[in-house]
């Protein structure tokens, strides 16, 4: 019996990070209607930056401060991405948005290998949570207990943020009818940017919190994004509580699945997802999607044409790329020639 309890707790611990990342994705989708494929990339960047910061600054403050600061830094990066890329594609077809954010993911993957090298990195263990606690002869890592507590705490904070602050009210209103929010004098641009920042912060925090138990490496993003999509589909896009319940469900299915079907535990999760989709196509906690309320007459070009300054910058970047063979080594050349292609062949 203690074994099953510990297995259950272990599942809960795995659910924590999954929940953080999934809730971020859900929040962003709710307001901006963007399915942000790059969410996994922000998760990974959170882990990498946290690795560097916690490595540089010692002590408990260095560790916990490093985790939080890493998430903040990546949230700031998210703000830049939102302003430079997403603002242009809010009204584009979904496929286009997926492609753009997927392209971003591939670039980030190359970037982390360039910056941090190709090897897996071993993050610091959390001060005060290094060992395991004995539970009737079974060991449960104390860091897992920390994560188990963290999940509901973050859920509670998010609930307060969305129910008890003006920002939360505006976000919920915009989730339903963005144009009406604008017609009441609210600048949606900044609302969207701030929502994106919060979503990215959650993803990066989810990644940063993994460094004491995971390997920091360049494929973390794709690994998590699949799970996160599953969680969000089961829980219902746009629902934070749904993300929580589904994260727990998926993690527990994993934890117990390996005991019964060690070879196909991963399939189990997809079976459950299929079952949920049949019974509730919009997810356990999702709401049936009404037709999005749009204001007639507001049509926006998918590609806002670049301003002259931006054209200049884009041209300069291309010229530099074209001139790369002249002054850089072979390696930079291969990487350089792959970046503009966004490695479509993967």
């Amino acid at each position: 019996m203690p074994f099953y309890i510990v297995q259950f707790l272990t599942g809960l611990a795995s659910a924590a990070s999954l929940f953080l990342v999934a809730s971020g994705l859900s929040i962003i989708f709710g307001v901006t209607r963007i399915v942000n494929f790059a969410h996994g990339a922000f998760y990974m960047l959170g882990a990498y930056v946290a690795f560097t910061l916690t490595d540089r600054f010692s002590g408990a403050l260095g560790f916990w401060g490093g985790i939080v600061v890493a998430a903040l830094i990546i949230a700031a990066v998210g703000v830049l991405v939102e302003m430079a890329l997403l603002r242009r594609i809010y009204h584009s077809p979904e496929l286009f948005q997926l492609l753009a954010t997927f392209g971003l993911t591939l670039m980030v993957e190359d970037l982390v290998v360039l910056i941090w090298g190709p090897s897996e990195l071993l993050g610091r263990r959390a001060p005060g949570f290094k060992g395991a606690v004995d539970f009737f002869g079974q060991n449960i890592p104390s860091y897992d207990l920390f994560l188990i507590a963290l999940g509901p705490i973050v859920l509670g904070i998010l609930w307060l943020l969305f129910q008890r602050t003006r920002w939360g009210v505006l976000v919920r209103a915009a989730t339903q009818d963005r144009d009406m929010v604008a017609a009441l004098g609210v600048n949606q641009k900044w609302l969207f940017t701030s929502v994106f920042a919060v979503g990215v912060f959650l993803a990066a925090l989810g990644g940063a919190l993994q460094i004491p138990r995971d390997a920091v490496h360049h494929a973390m993003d794709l690994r998590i994004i699949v799970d996160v999509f599953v969680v969000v589909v089961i829980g219902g896009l746009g629902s934070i509580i749904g993300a929580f319940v589904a994260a727990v469900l998926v993690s527990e299915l994993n934890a117990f699945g390996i005991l019964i079907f060690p070879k196909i535990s991963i399939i189990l999760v997809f079976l459950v997802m299929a079952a949920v989709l049949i019974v509730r196509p919009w997810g356990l906690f999702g709401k049936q999607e009404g037709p999005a309320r749009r204001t007639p007459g507001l049509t926006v070009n998918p590609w806002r044409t670049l301003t002259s300054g931006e054209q200049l910058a884009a041209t300069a970047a291309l010229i530099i790329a074209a001139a790369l063979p002249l002054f850089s080594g072979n390696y930079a050349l291969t990487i350089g020639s792959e970046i503009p292609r966004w490695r479509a062949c993967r």
Partner: protein
Amino acid sequence: MKLSVQDLNSHYGPAHILFDIALEVGDGEVVALLGRNGAGKSTTFRSIIGLVEQRSGRIVFEGKDVSHQPTHAIVSRGLGYVPEERRIFTELTVEENLEVGRQPRRPNAPHWTREKLFALFPNLGEMRNRPGGRMSGGEQQMLTIARTLMGNPSLVLLDEPSEGLSPKIVEQMVDAILIMKKEGVSIVVSEQNLHFAKLISDRAYIIERGRICFGGTMAELDARPDIRDAHLSL
């Protein structure tokens, strides 16, 4: 002069809807915009606050040209808009709906608080925590006006406030609009209901197929039954 619109032309895609609309609203005035279904009343309002992308012309609000500003910027200058479809946030409670509309106090416009609005629309005060989706049409209409007033506007564009309401609620609506006027809010109200318009308005414009074809005081309109019969279906 509160608001002046000149040469306003609007399109939905290839369709040219508004043709050289010109209208003016004085300080503290209530002006009616009358016209049949599809005449272009709602489009005029949407164009004024920038919700129609393809529009040209000059829109001057409180002496400032706002023709090229985005919707939120125009609205936060104190030009409130109450849409015909009401567009209540159904997931949000009455209080939260009001919160979305809240804007800072403005020196040249009456200041509305939650309590003041609950006094104006007593029904709302009794359902502060009810989600917008579970209110009757009349209650939603009151909420959408109250929500716009939370922005402390000096001018409100009211799109067919009496549409689909029972006579009793229409009476309440008349009272509310008169109180707003008394407080000093300028109002443009679009209507098909001439009787309702007469109860509240100082002046009227008639719009027909996207063109203004009459402008004058209510007394002048009363004196021209020919115009009334030609352009309004009563």
